[in-house]
């Protein structure tokens, strides 16, 4: 067994009972299997295929604590949850490390037919849904998914019943806060039944930049026939945090799913997206952007599989890299023999600014039939000299001109955000990110109307 895996297997073996006592049977049922996969796993290292800049072996080799006994964390959410997307009226839910928590405005304005709860809820609806869907998509061959399945004790279920349209955005704020190195093992399950519609915004916040923190996350999304989901993830963590996330989505016929991963501040991040279609006429918009500087790392892996025909994928990832940061994009779109009339477009564009920054880009199309429209492209470039000079000739300082150009570069990913409040807010956050450079929460100084929400929370 690999050394870096051993500590987790031992942890599991020693604390199996405690671990299982806090969780529902559906979660416990998969642990043994996950352990089996991990015992034989060989963790990807730097330079392993599709791992240009991330070494799971090294990242998981560190000694993080796991909150096996579900001790409540000494966290003051009002202190921790500052920035987020204020002024956006949402139904707000928290996970503090990997513990689910309600806020006073959690269920405000949510229609019947929507369930947002802890994975450990005892209700009839959650149990039935979780039992049916939990672990159905996440492949245990993926070490991130296997380790998450082995250790996850809590997380969030979002279930939207058939035909239910949710106007209000559901916001999940994930706060990582701990005095000692900690691995938060979070699980998210999103199930949209037929013709359901919902918008979800998940924000990661880490305020602490002195303690190592790992966010090990698995998201499973089922989009039923004719359903519509917009799922936004925004990371505003710190340089000491590691985020390993694997998202799995399965779309039934005529469903529309938008997934947009936004990395404003991070440490080391690997975001994996596995998407597939089970019915005709489904559309996926998979996009993301990252702003990297200092020593930050952002690694995106995407795997979209067209097994049935008449589906549409639009994929766009954009990075801006400076200093000694590293970025990677590996994207595979696979179109099977039977998947006729597939449309799939994949694009990765990057600006590598001054310094030692590096970008690795590997877009791939694998097409096994002729009756398709597909394209892919990649570009790694610098800021345009003539644009810069034009702006400077009008009096803009060089730095300001660069900043505007970088912002402009990311604007088409921001344009893809359909929630207008979020789009405006994001425009502002990106602007501040380029202008400030510091970690978001640390530089916020509390003027962001963060205190709007009364933070009495319930576990």
């Amino acid at each position: 067994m690999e050394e870096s895996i051993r500590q987790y297997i031992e942890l599991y073996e020693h604390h199996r009972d405690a671990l299982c006592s806090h969780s529902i049977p559906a979660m416990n049922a998969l642990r043994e299997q996950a352990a089996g996969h991990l015992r034989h796993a060989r963790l990807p290292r730097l330079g392993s295929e599709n791992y240009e800049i991330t070494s799971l072996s090294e990242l998981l080799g560190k000694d993080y604590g796991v909150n096996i006994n579900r001790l409540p964390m000494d966290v003051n959410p009002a202190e921790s949850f500052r920035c987020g997307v204020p002024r956006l009226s949402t139904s707000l839910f928290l996970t503090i490390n990997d513990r689910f928590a309600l806020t006073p405005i959690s269920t405000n304005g949510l229609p019947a037919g929507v369930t947002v709860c802890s994975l450990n809820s005892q209700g009839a609806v959650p149990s039935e849904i979780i039992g049916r869907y939990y672990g159905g998509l996440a492949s245990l061959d993926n070490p991130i998914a296997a380790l998450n399945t082995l250790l996850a004790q809590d997380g969030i279920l979002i279930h939207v019943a058939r035909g239910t349209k949710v106007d209000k955005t559901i916001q999940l704020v994930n706060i990582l806060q701990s005095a000692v190195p900690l691995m938060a093992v979070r699980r998210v399950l999103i199930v949209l039944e037929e013709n359901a519609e919902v918008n979800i915004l998940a924000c990661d916040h880490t305020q602490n930049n002195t303690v190592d923190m790992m966010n090990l996350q698995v998201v499973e999304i089922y989009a039923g026939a004719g359903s519509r989901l917009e799922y936004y993830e925004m990371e505003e963590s710190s340089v000491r945090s590691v985020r390993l996330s694997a998202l799995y989505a399965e779309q039934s016929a005529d469903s529309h799913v938008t997934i947009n991963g936004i990395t404003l501040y991070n440490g080391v991040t690997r975001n994996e997206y596995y998407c597939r279609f089970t019915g005709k006429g489904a559309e996926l918009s998979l996009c993301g952007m990252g702003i990297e500087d200092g020593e930050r790392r952002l690694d995106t892996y995407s795997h979209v599989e067209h097994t049935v025909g008449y589906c549409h994928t639009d994929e766009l990832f954009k990075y801006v890299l400076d200093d000694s940061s590293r970025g990677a994009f590996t994207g595979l779109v696979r179109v099977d023999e039977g998947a006729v009339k597939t449309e799939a477009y994949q694009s990765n564009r990057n600006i590598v600014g001054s310094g030692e920054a590096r970008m690795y880009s590997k877009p791939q199309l694998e097409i096994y039939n002729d009756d398709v429209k597909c394209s892919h492209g990649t570009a790694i470039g610098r800021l345009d000299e003539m644009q810069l000079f034009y702006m400077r000739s009008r009096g803009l300082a060089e730095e300001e001109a660069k900043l505007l150009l970088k912002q402009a570069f990311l604007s088409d990913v921001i344009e893809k955000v359909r929630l207008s409040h979020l789009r405006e807010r994001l425009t502002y956050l990106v602007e501040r990110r380029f202008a400030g450079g510091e970690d978001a929460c640390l530089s916020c100084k509390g003027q962001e109307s963060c205190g709007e929400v009364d933070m009495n929370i319930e576990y």
Partner: protein
Amino acid sequence: MLKVNNLRAEINGKEILKGINLEVRPGEVHAIMGPNGSGKSTLSMVLAGNPSYDVTGGSVEFYGKDLLAMSPEVRSHEGLFLGFQYPVEIPGVSMVNFMRAAVNAKRKYFGMEPMSASEFLKMMREKRSVVELDNKLASRSVNEGFSGGEKKRNEIFQMAVLEPRLSILDETDSGLDIDALRIVAEGVNKLKSADNATIVITHYQRLLDYIKPDIVHILYKGRIVKTAGPELALELEERGYDWIKEEVERKDAEQRR
């Protein structure tokens, strides 16, 4: 205001400007003409401070200061404006934001507070009317999808906003229809005063019918080979450049002997 003395410049190791001498005083309008590729745009780029060009010799004084030592943005603050022959498209940056940044950068340079939003919008409205620029263009990305003529109008609009002391207009007339030419020329004339000056780079007399130059220069192979009054432009219109080229060749030959 501007004294160019034996200016030499190159790009990618190729010498383009081979000793330019030029003096411009407040209130004057200069026209620079010359065959394609003679270095007119290069001169305007070098004066505006495009870092892609290397100055290899000579000096430029602007109101007594060393222009060549200034960054492009400081040149702009100090009152130099270049209307580009090929205005640059900047997708994703709106005209409004661009102009606000430009105006406030200049104010900051002079120790002034940023302009208030209402003040700024009022000014934009006023300046837009100088060149009859469509409001819709002002809300779009800088030059993106603008027609050739719209881009040129937009240059004059920016000039109106920035109120420069010296404007260099590089072929602002090319690509304009007759009405647009009149509007642009009138715009330039409206902004003219006894304190500022204009250098128009053009191939055509028709612009000079509207914007009357005091002095006309001919730039050829990186040098100003002839300077005269407005009648020179008329003569060029009639006779073309061949006689100038012959004159230059003859003089060069004499010198060599």
